[in-house]
């Protein structure tokens, strides 16, 4: 017979190898390009078509740039508290002064309301505090080794009380903008660390489960099923509460990472196992085995590269859950503890409606959480679609 039958019954369309075609290319040329393109090129072409994923990538890159240069972006010591400046509202920057571009903020004077005992701030139009870009401030080492004292913005007033609060201050009078920068660093990196640890557990256990099958597979699968059917937050809380109060910030940081990843590896293990199971049946694995490759070689030279893209996608989709976990735990006071700063720690100040009613700006740290989680989801979705460029 002149053909092989395809089991397709629907419209006789091409499966979809076209979908990853760069559109701008004329067809025949594009076809040639596809024929010689590597797997990663195909994935990139397909990923590029996913607009939300592209937007998400840009946002994530920005986020991590922020995380790498917190000292440059913040202008105040995040831990410097000052009772005189408790709960100041965000200041608005005035961009022009008498028609000239010369940003400034007005000075504020605080008084305690004798009736409510709240501090009330009034704008003092006499005092204009100039705001400058690339201003000098406290000294720091960029990326840990390049000494500098340049900050993105700052005030150029000589007097110590002439400062700036773009996002206002918290109860203890600490600058929210600078704290948010440091919190971003912590939260993003704790997410990465947890995912890395989950990945390790997931790949090892999922890999063993999928590669060997049999009894080991059954046992690991049951464990995963059991872990997935237990509500995680009570468990997290229980484990986190057991951390000794005397531990240092670093120790808690490390322990929280472990706790989050202990319960987060199951999804990654599921993906890895699924891939291993389907790859085991593939002809090229059989061929490698017949050619006398060692098991390690088969796994790392033949199997892992062919599902690496799926793992990356699954990791990206797991990250937002890790970030939300950390935020939730810290929000409840059982995750990172002050003086550590993270998005969750910052949001702890916004826990009660009383606090929110007076100082709604304390809710600002929720914005980066939502944006980062959205961006990770978009990118993860795009990666997942692109991970199967032949599908």
């Amino acid at each position: 017979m002149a053909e092989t039958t395809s089991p397709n019954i629907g419209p006789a369309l091409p499966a979809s190898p076209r979908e990853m075609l760069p559109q701008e290319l004329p067809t025949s040329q594009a076809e040639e390009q596809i024929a010689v393109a590597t797997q990663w090129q195909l994935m990139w072409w397909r990923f590029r078509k996913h607009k939300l994923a592209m937007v998400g990538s840009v946002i994530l890159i920005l986020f991590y740039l922020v995380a790498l240069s917190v000292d440059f972006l913040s202008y105040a010591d995040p831990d410097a508290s000052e009772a005189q400046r408790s709960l100041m509202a965000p200041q608005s920057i005035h961009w022009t002064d008498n028609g000239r571009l010369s940003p400034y903020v007005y000075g504020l004077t605080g008084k305690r309301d004798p009736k409510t005992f709240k501090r009330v701030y009034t704008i003092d139009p006499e005092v204009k505090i100039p705001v400058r870009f690339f201003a000098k401030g406290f000294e720091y080492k960029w990326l840990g080794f390049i000494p500098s004292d340049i900050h993105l913005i700052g005030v150029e007033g000589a007097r110590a009380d002439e400062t700036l609060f773009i996002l206002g201050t918290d109860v203890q009078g600490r600058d929210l903008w600078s704290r948010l920068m440091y919190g971003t660093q912590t939260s993003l990196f704790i997410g990465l660390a947890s995912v890395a640890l989950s990945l390790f557990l997931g790949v090892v256990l999922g890999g063993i489960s999928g590669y060997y099958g049999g009894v080991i597979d059954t046992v690991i699968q049951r464990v995963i099923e059991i872990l997935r059917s237990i509500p995680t937050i009570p468990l997290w809380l229980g484990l986190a509460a057991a951390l000794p109060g005397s531990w240092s910030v670093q120790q808690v940081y490390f322990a929280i990472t472990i706790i989050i990843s202990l319960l987060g590896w199951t999804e990654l293990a599921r993906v890895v196992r699924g891939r291993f199971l389907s790859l085991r049946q593939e002809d090229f694995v059989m061929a490698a085995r017949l050619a006398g490759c060692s098991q390690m070689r088969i796994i790392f030279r033949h199997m892992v590269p062919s599902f690496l893209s799926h793992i990356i996608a699954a990791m990206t989709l797991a990250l937002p859950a890790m970030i939300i976990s950390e935020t939730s735990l810290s929000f409840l006071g059982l995750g990172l503890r002050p003086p550590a700063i993270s998005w969750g720690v910052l949001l702890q100040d916004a826990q009660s409606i009383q606090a929110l009613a007076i100082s709604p700006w304390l809710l600002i740290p929720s914005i980066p959480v939502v944006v980062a989680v959205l961006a990770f989801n978009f990118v993860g979705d795009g990666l997942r679609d692109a991970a199967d460029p032949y599908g």
Partner: protein
Amino acid sequence: MQSEQKPLLSVRNLKTYFFQDEGTVKAVDGATFDVYPGKTLGIVGESGCGKSVTAQSILRIVDQPGRIVDGEIVLRGADGNDVELTRLHPDSREMRDIRGTEIGLVFQEPMTSFSPVHTVGNQIVEAIRLHCGVNEREARIKAVETLRQVGIPKPERRIDEYAFELSGGLRQRAMIAVALSCNPRLLIADEPTTALDVTTQAQILDLLRQLQEQRGMAIMLITHNLGVIAEMADDVVVMYLGRVVEQGPVDAIFHSPQHPYTRALLRSIPSIESTPRVELPTISGSIPHPYNRPSGCPFYPRCPEFIPGTCDQAEPALRAVSEQQSVSCFLYQSQVSQGQGTKPSEGMA
């Protein structure tokens, strides 16, 4: 030729395109043929030549983003009135009544053609109740009867089973029963035996022939299998890339194929008479990508008789080469136009 008889279904210049981001796929691009009452029309071609989309177009069940962009599909009603199917709304009452009561459909894959969570009986009874206006009990009796007719043993028990409980052959019989439950005058069978093993294939083909005799219905048999065509069809339509390249009675197609594509197809069938240990001829090249159709005759890049400057410039029209056979190829165009002055036989089959 059945010139004394009017066709049951006439398809004229049917074009069904799929509009996608990446481009337009011309799945069916100007198909023309007729189906006569009580006869079997075989439609043959490689995967992706538009056979299945043609069937879906006739039933008006082409999936998004597909659309019929041009052409006519005329169904001769039982009362003698013609209905132009392309003018009906796909989800209109009239079109829905035609599906099932006038035209039945059998698919290649009987397993996935049944809902996995409904019993076989449920799906037959549903069709009967919808079209025959009978109550649940009567519909069930009729369903059991239909299952018996298609040769399913113990139909009163099988009716309450799920498709996955039946064997492949029984499943396909049940599928035929669903299609025939409201006595359609035309049965479209889209690769009805492809997914079955060889002995079961023969049984299903026998069944179809037997049912055709009993009911006098027409069958439109879509297949890539020339053996099935030889066994079943009265007339044959050969399709390539959405176009009809040749059509005629089954004997003419098999014994004097005219189009280079038909000839190549026939050469590629292994035969008991062919010389042993000689490689079976294949058609060189592969089907062009649907976004990347060649200009001119779609077959020219693979054609052994390609005429440069002609075949790659214009599309040949379907012209009669004999009283019953027509071909769409430039090899015969001059001969026809110079010859006996036969007018272009769009209406002939």
